[in-house]
């Protein structure tokens, strides 16, 4: 699935575009806990979240995440948009809830990262 297709599936709106709409997304993940993103996020993953503060962008940057989707039509504050522009992160907004946004993407073929063992040191 590429970014363009994902935006269609989510009926979303691109708030900050820093990537080619044809860029492929390897997998998706969802979290409202930034430590979870750091622990389970993987390079290139699209992150769905209900948080909109600038730290979400920072966290994504550190985790190698390029695209963030805000669920429930949340509009991020200007600082978040500004930081995303500076850090080369793309931001998308969707009206669906976290559950439904994830469900739609998974159903449309965007995989997750599979079972995670937290004690496993090999991620």
């Amino acid at each position, binding site marked *: 699935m590429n970014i363009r297709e994902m935006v269609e599936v989510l009926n979303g709106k691109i708030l900050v575009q820093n990537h080619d*709409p044809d860029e492929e997304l390897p997998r998706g993940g969802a979290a409202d*806990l930034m430590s*979870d993103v750091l622990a389970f996020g993987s*390079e290139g993953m699209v992150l769905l*979240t209900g*948080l909109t503060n600038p*730290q979400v962008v920072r966290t994504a940057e*550190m*985790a190698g995440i390029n695209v963030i989707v805000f669920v429930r039509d949340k509009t991020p504050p200007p600082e978040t948009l500004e930081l995303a522009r500076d850090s080369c992160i793309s931001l998308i907004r969707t009206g669906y809830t976290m559950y439904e946004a994830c469900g739609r993407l998974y159903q449309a073929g965007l995989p997750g990262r599979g079972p995670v063992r937290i004690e496993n040191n090999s991620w």
Partner: protein
Amino acid sequence: MKTIHGDMSTQEITKVQELIYTTRVESVMASNVIAIDPSFTMSQVKDLMRDKHISGAPVVKEKQVIGIVTISDVIRSMEEGKLNFLVTDLMTSDVRTVSKDAMVTDVVNNLGRQGFSRLPVVDQDGTLVGIVTTGTLIRSLLMQMDKSFQKNEAEKLYTYRASHIFQDISSDDTSLLLRYFVNERDFDNAGKASSLIKRSLQRLMLLPQIVRRVGVAVYEAEMNLVIHTDIGGEITVEVRKDRVNISTVDHGPGIADLKQVLQPGFSTAPEWIRDMGFGAGMGLANIRRVSDVMKLTSSPGQGTRLEIVFNFRNDSLATTRSPQKA
């Protein structure tokens, strides 16, 4: 010398396309837009266009664009003897506008294929905030191309210089020391040091997987300084040929029970920190998981010191690879 019809390389075309896709309308518009009041007559419009050297302008009522009037409307009014008519009688009222947050692609499609020569730019409330014409578009795209070219060249140079430090500097054991100061409770800048560290390690051409692990650890550590200290702290990153040593030092309240804070899920963070997605008690667990060695020393009133080590083989630094073969 290239002729005007000379080939644009594929790379150049891709760069233009990329800019068109990634640049927002807001950054290519002229914001000092001249708007026309609905009470104007065509004669007043004609004078305004002459004085301001413009060939068209939006007609605005209560900040909303209700029409657009161009020089051909003025000519028509002269031909038909309608110079004393109101602008609202002769303007085009079916106006195509574009959002300031839209991408330049939208503008290109409308200006080119639809044959419009100017597009009023509006914000979320439909308030007029600027105007784009082919002129403003080309000017700002050229400026951005120039800027991004210079930035690319500079980045290449920095990466080259930085990554050669381990070869160019002679010593028995070279290391590079980076220091960052972190303020307590400064959430606007929280993570900035980590971001700079990540970029610096990228410039030093460390392997991406190591950069990523360091990034995660140092970000968690930085957030701890922001959240839990009352006078901030310092992050030191020592880059060596075969490892990265990170230490964060603060003179904050210190930790009474070290065993307890190392337990995943234990947290003393207040509710509002948790609302921001932090303070779940996973920070130190995350750091321990991504690093090779983690050592936490602290006692109440004495501050806290966290040392993190990432070991890698010599060849993880691209700089230690053999020089390019000709």
